[in-house]
């Protein structure tokens, strides 16, 4: 029996057990998040730490009318899980006495059962590691490889059952030239291709040669700048930190308050939550099915928001299947007219910014943000790369970056799979163009 059948059947059996042990008037939701991941950390082209993490987390929510309480546990994958789940159910029933009525509880009452399973096509991770070490020989490659199956499940007392499983690899890495000068790359997929990683690392070696030139230091001030999709990805991630959350908008904590109040980005800016084009499961932890696409910004104007079930109940509006955090897990931004191959020429003289780093708000209601240049960023003159940049801090407003200073968006967009693994391997992604700015404010 394959791994995914084991986990899926185990989960469905637990859901049936909970169903059979419910008292009159009780309901439940189960949310399962699991993976068997090999994580291999590299430094100096060699292995720093290698190991496997097999984990399955199950969140059990017991509901009685508008009262509910949840408990997250770790499953062992063995028969004892059934006893554990029963014990948790008893415990939750006892603790429910202390729970207050929750006016914001909203359950998915329409049954929408789904299954999506991508069979594991990966070779043993040891083989992938061998390929990487061979390709990196002689180079200072540092990064993280994650490989193996990731799965999600949902079940409730209405009989809904959802399962989503993929087996993928994600290798997020940098090739260092010297000091803090590096070329950053990454890739992910369902099938491993040793030739592709050899080609990628070879290409990075060639790019790294540009970094060996004497670095150029900039004075604070305004500069023309081209941001690659990866650099824009950092800005989009910050924007996604509550920016499109309906709850944050209603409670005036969103960075896009002014957009909500009528301000606008450039008409060339359109953004969406594009779950159909992403890697995330189609269902979320309360069992709501996500629409294929939620427009967020259309031609510069706020066009939508991410509404979790709780927010929907609180403000009496429809939910669009957002998670409790109300962030986009499959964020996309439409491209423009500039061919990516012409980006340097269009930039002329200014900054080529391949990555940004450690962004945060310097004035959230005003959508002013700060952050650092990172990795292979260059000073460009007349469309030619002249020298690598020493790191600089920018501090500028989203209304300038996506508005008054936006000169062009690249025609091509790039798909970026999130290599994050806080708690579990991320299934988030972004699809973004490059961005040409007339002026970006550097401060330190």
């Amino acid at each position: 029996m394959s791994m995914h059948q084991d986990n899926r059947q185990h989960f469905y059996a637990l859901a049936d057990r909970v169903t059979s042990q419910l008292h009159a008037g009780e309901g439940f939701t189960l949310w399962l998040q699991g993976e068997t991941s090999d994580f291999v950390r590299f430094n100096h082209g060699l292995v720093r730490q290698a190991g496997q993490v097999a984990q399955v987390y199950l969140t059990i929510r017991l509901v009685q009318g508008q009262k509910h309480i949840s408990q997250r546990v770790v499953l062992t994958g063995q028969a004892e899980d059934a006893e554990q789940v029963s014990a948790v159910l008893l415990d939750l029933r006892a603790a429910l006495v202390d729970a207050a009525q929750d006016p914001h509880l909203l359950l998915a009452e329409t049954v929408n059962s789904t299954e999506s399973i991508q069979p594991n096509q990966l070779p043993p991770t040891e083989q992938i590691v061998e390929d990487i070490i061979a390709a990196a020989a002689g180079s200072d490659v540092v990064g993280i490889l994650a490989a193996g199956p990731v799965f999600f499940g949902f079940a409730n007392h209405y009989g809904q059952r959802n399962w989503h499983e993929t087996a993928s690899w994600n290798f997020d890495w940098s090739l260092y030239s010297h000091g803090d000068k590096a070329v950053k790359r990454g890739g992910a997929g369902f099938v491993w291709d040793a030739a592709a990683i050899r080609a990628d690392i070879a290409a990075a070696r060639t790019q790294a040669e540009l970094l060996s030139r004497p670095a150029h230091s900039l004075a604070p001030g305004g500069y023309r700048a081209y941001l690659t999709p990866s650099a824009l990805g950092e800005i989009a991630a910050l924007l996604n930190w509550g920016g499109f959350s309906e709850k944050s908008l209603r409670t005036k904590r969103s960075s896009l308050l002014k957009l909500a109040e009528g301000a606008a980005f450039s008409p060339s800016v359109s953004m969406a939550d594009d779950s159909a084009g992403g890697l995330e499961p189609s269902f979320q932890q309360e069992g709501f099915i996500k629409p294929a696409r939620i427009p967020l910004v259309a031609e510069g104007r706020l066009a939508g928001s991410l509404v979790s079930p709780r927010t929907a109940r609180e403000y009496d509006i429809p939910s669009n299947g957002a998670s409790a955090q109300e962030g986009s897990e499959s964020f996309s931004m439409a491209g423009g007219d500039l061919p990516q191959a012409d980006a340097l020429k269009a930039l002329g003289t200014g900054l080529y910014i391949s990555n940004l780093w450690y962004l945060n708000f310097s004035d959230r209601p005003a959508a002013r943000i700060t952050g650092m240049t990172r990795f292979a960023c260059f000073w460009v003159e007349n469309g030619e790369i002249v020298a690598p940049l020493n790191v600089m801090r920018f501090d500028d407003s989203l209304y300038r970056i996506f508005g008054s200073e936006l000169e062009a968006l690249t025609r091509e967009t790039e798909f970026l799979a999130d290599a994050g693994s806080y708690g579990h391997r991320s299934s988030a992604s972004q699809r973004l163009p490059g961005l040409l700015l007339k002026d970006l404010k550097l401060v330190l």
Partner: protein
Amino acid sequence: MFKPLIQRFRALEASVDFCSLRLVEEQSESLAVRQSVPQPIERRTERGAMITVIHRGGYGYAATADLSQSGLAAAFERAKAWAQATAGRSVFDYSKAALTHPVGQYHGPAAAAELDWDRKILMDLLMSESEACRLDERIVDWGVNLDRLDVRQLYLTSGGGEVEQSFRALIPALSATAYADGDSQTRSLGGQYNGYCRQGGLEVIDQSGLRGAGRRVADEALQLLTAPNCPSGKQDLLLMPSQMMLQIHESIGHPLELDRILGDERNYAGTSFVSLDMFGNYQYGSPLLNVTYDPSRSNEFAAYGWDDDGTPAEKTFLIRNGQLEHPLGGTISQARAGERGLDLGGVANSRACNWNRAPIDRMANLNIEAGDQTLEQLVAGIEHGVLMDTNVSWSIDDSRNKFQFSCEWGRVIENGELKGVVKNPGYRGISATFWRSLKAVGNQGTDDVMGTPYCGKGEPNQVIRVGHASPACVFGDVEVFGGEV
């Protein structure tokens, strides 16, 4: 209670150079009231173990929640397979790391006692503080939280090591957001990201000042709403402990982590402006700067007896009188530096965030030692400056050098006196020079114990608990700025 697990571990066919098991059990519960509406109670239980194998110079681990004999045996085999697969292909010959076989117990404050976790009484407190936030219609959002955490850990080694540790922590939090005319200002108790996190029992609630905080915090949010922006320009800066904790964390803690200096973090969290040759001779700050790794302050969030590689924890000066002495490096990092002929010392800070992540170098309790000036004396010594309190924004470069931080709350200081409130106070600088501008250090009376549950680092990623205690401090000639005009 751990006896069956210990027996199962001892029964493994551990035909390897070194093997350890690290069990983590955590139980947590979150109580919350938002806008005077009780939020659903959320509880979490963790239970799992990581087996680590070092064999013929290779290193491998396997984390599993299946703690049966067969589950541990399978994890052992996987860890051993990774050790074998990486032998001769690793950045370091792990057989050269002198991992020890410690025996002992450590129990943090209140960890062994019963906790009187009366949800009704506690929810009444949260509700009462929530209600107190309703000062004005311009308060548009507010919330009060109380989290509790109980942790038990077991560390076993194939050489007979057996360490049991337990910890209890409480995390109270409160914040209020005021809004008018397109501007929004949030004020909090100790930070919007749980700055008041401490080990201990219910006494932490009072230590944090949660009782009575609702009205004060909401009132301060309203004051911010009508306050002018923080003035810009170079001036003196008085940082209170709830901002000092962030300043210590980002521009001393992370740069001194030895695994970063050795390059492990370069693809993710970054490198460090500190290099191996600086220890013992680099002037990190002014002579007033004394920084310690101090697990002996047991109510701090990251106090413990042994780290996750079994190294005993003891107070160590990292920076003394401004001079850099030691890195934040555990046994393996110290051995890696030793391979390069450097004996840097280090501390017991090899830590993992949970059972499913491998230990890496982490700051733990990282503190600034108190000086001798009262808060009044600190203010009196400033002719032209700003007081900043409670971090709200943090950003620092790859090398942990160029930084920009912002706070919730500011007060102008003129001619040695505190003046009006200012909003959006921020400042920027460079770590390598900022600490040398330290002009005055507050006494114990200005000291506070803060921390964060959310320090991110590592590949795979880990969020870990960190403690920072600090007095108020004054820095000279800092670039200060306010919000968008």
